[in-house]
């Protein structure tokens, strides 16, 4: 579903944020992307979602190039950023409907999904309020509902559990599992290694823009915990 080949991205000023990384996320995968702050996780995610341009390498979503067919790629992808900066001047329902319009989600399907996810995240009563009145967690929930409104084939999340209450985190994890069972692929970054260990079937560890480990979870961690592997690979092991 998602194929990253030799991706490299250098920011203005010469900082190499990502340096030739390659990985593959298959249908049904929950792929955890782990790394210390500033390792290149968000840069990679933004390149995948078409937000950031990159100078070399290739990103394919469902066989389509992000560079050559950006709109087609975006149509089957949903992205939830680490900071849910969504339109504060809209109400929650107006924002979700706006996203539904952009993805051209059929009216009945749209209403059904809004009901399903808004009820799940206990946001229904708040949908008529302006987003500027929402807490960080509520904005995050609206961003998640909007991302799910078009039933994406590839769900990309950047630190999705930061800011969510335990109940919402639990619901999101269940949604992620359900989506993968139905043939979707999930690619997400996280700092919470316990979550990655419990949720993912594949992980990649990035350090200073380079992949230091990538593959099925059991293969990457071997007999150790993911935390021990991460600390060793990120240069903080004993």
């Amino acid at each position, binding site marked *: 579903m998602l194929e990253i080949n030799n991706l490299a991205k250098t920011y203005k000023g010469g900082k190499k944020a990502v340096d030739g990384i390659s990985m593959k996320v298959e249908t049904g995968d929950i792929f955890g992307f782990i790394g210390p702050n500033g390792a290149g996780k968000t840069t990679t995610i933004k390149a995948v979602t078409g937000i950031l341009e990159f100078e070399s390498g290739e990103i394919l979503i469902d066989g389509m190039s992000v560079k050559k067919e950006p709109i087609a790629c*975006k149509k089957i*992808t949903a992205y939830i*950023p680490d900071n849910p900066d*969504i339109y504060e001047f809209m109400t929650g329902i107006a924002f979700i*409907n706006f996203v539904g*319009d952009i993805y051209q989600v059929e009216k009945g399907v*749209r209403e059904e999904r809004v009901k399903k996810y808004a009820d799940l995240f206990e946001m229904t009563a708040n949908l*008529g*309020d302006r987003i*500027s009145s929402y807490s960080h967690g509520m904005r995050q929930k609206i961003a998640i509902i909007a991302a799910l409104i078009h039933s994406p084939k590839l769900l990309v999340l950047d630190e999705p559990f930061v800011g969510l209450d335990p109940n919402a985190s639990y619901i999101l994890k269940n949604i992620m599992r359900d989506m993968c069972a139905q043939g979707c692929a999930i690619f997400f970054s996280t700092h919470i290694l316990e979550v990655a260990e419990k949720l993912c079937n594949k992980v990649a560890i990035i350090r200073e823009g380079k992949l230091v480990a990538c593959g099925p979870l059991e293969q990457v961690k071997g007999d150790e915990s993911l935390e021990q592997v991460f600390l060793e690979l990120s240069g903080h092991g004993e």
Partner: protein
Amino acid sequence: MGNELKLLLRVEWKRLLDSLNPGRSKSRAGSRKTALFSAVVLAAAGLLIAYAVFYFVLIAQQLQKADAMRVLPELVMAICSFMAVFTSIYKVKGTLFGFGDYDFIMSLPVKTVTVAAAKLLMLYFMNLFFCVFLLLPAGAVYAYYESPGAWFYAAFLLLFPFVPLVPVVIAAVIGAAIHFVSAGFKHSNVVNLAVTLALFVGLMFVSFNTGNFFLNAAKIGGSFTAGFARVYPPAGWYAKALFEGNAVFLLLFIGVSLLTYLLFSYAAASRFKAINTRLAAVAAKSDYRLKELNVSSAFAALYKKELKRFFSSTNYVLNSAVGILLFTIASIAILFGGVDKLAVMMQMAGLKEMLVSFGPVAVSVFIALSCTTACSVSLEGKNLWLVRSLPAPVKLVFLSKIAVNLTLSVTASVINGTIFIIVLKPGLAGALLFYAVPLAYSVFTALMGLAVNLAYPNFSWTNEITVIKQSAAVMIALVIGLAAVAAPIAAIAALKTVHAVWVEAAAAALLACISAVLYRRIMTRGVKTFEAFE
């Protein structure tokens, strides 16, 4: 307090300069942009001062005949004070209260009074602009014609920096009151916008009458200040200090200005948290029930989003739709009062003849002032990721931004153009031009604003006013827009043998061609530029 105030002011200055500096990167392209923008700003500043001097010389010549030369500095001081109130009211939210980094600033170990004083000082510095570009040239022209003694120079320069202080405090009080009251309503933005617009129209009315008063005063050789001082006593002290050599009034003016500033800083500090908390609060009912959803096309969704963004911000509406508002006020004035009454109000003999020949281009200045696109890209700010990650072609995003500008300017052009045609009866060619010329300017302004914002974006703002009012893109778009109106007017004035109708038709045709080129560039290079924003 002094050191902390200095540090806070330094941060505010850096932020202001950053919003003005189009070439933030240290690359060669960044330096080139900064250099180009600096050259444009310097040229515009030079032109503004030259125009002010030219205009004041014309007034001075009339005033000299009436032996009322002192009216000049008095009047310009009044205009500066008035402008300070007028333009600061809607800057209060975002600058003094409800600013973007409120949480961070208030968490610092800095006294609230210091924060309030720093924010008020920033408002004050922004208003020194009018004094530099208006009061200084007026003082110079007065000095040239009257050759006053040393006292005038000393007093003028001493008083000069204190002129906007009290008006800024007055604006802060009015602005805070408007925001405080409107914050209590469910649709606080709508209330805020309605009250501010009503105030805007009221101040326009006062300014017209003040202009009349000045000219009448000048004709009879009386003191303009006598009237203005009744409403605003410091104006009387200013005049007495300047022309009567009265040191007591000089000290009174400076003392009262400083005292007002300090008192307001302390008063604002005591209610600072309460006011900011109220302004930050957004009404939430939490009683929504799911209902049928309206389905739109992707373009309609983006267009509605842009319209919502526009009307959600009083600053955005007032700064970008000021021309349309003035256009409508002018139309209503001539519809109900007739051109003759407007001519009397504006003290412009032969206004009807001028409007018939210059009209289509002259009213287009209102359209050039109404550019919503010049900050529309920058306003995406931290939401930029959204339009970048959604499957909406960039062209569609651009079209939605252009469409909002056209909705406002084309509607105003058609309605107000019709009113002008009904009142002026300019003949068939004139009537067609009353539609064609403003429409050509509408399209040009929308496209040019977008192109300029794509070249000079700023996504890292914390206060929207920095991109709506103080950004390089908005200033450049304003200069280009006004130059585009000034050029055909100058051509009509210069080419006396060619009928104005032909010049106006040529201007409309030329603008249409430039717009076509701009559209092409925006939809090709502009799209690539947008896709490369990081």
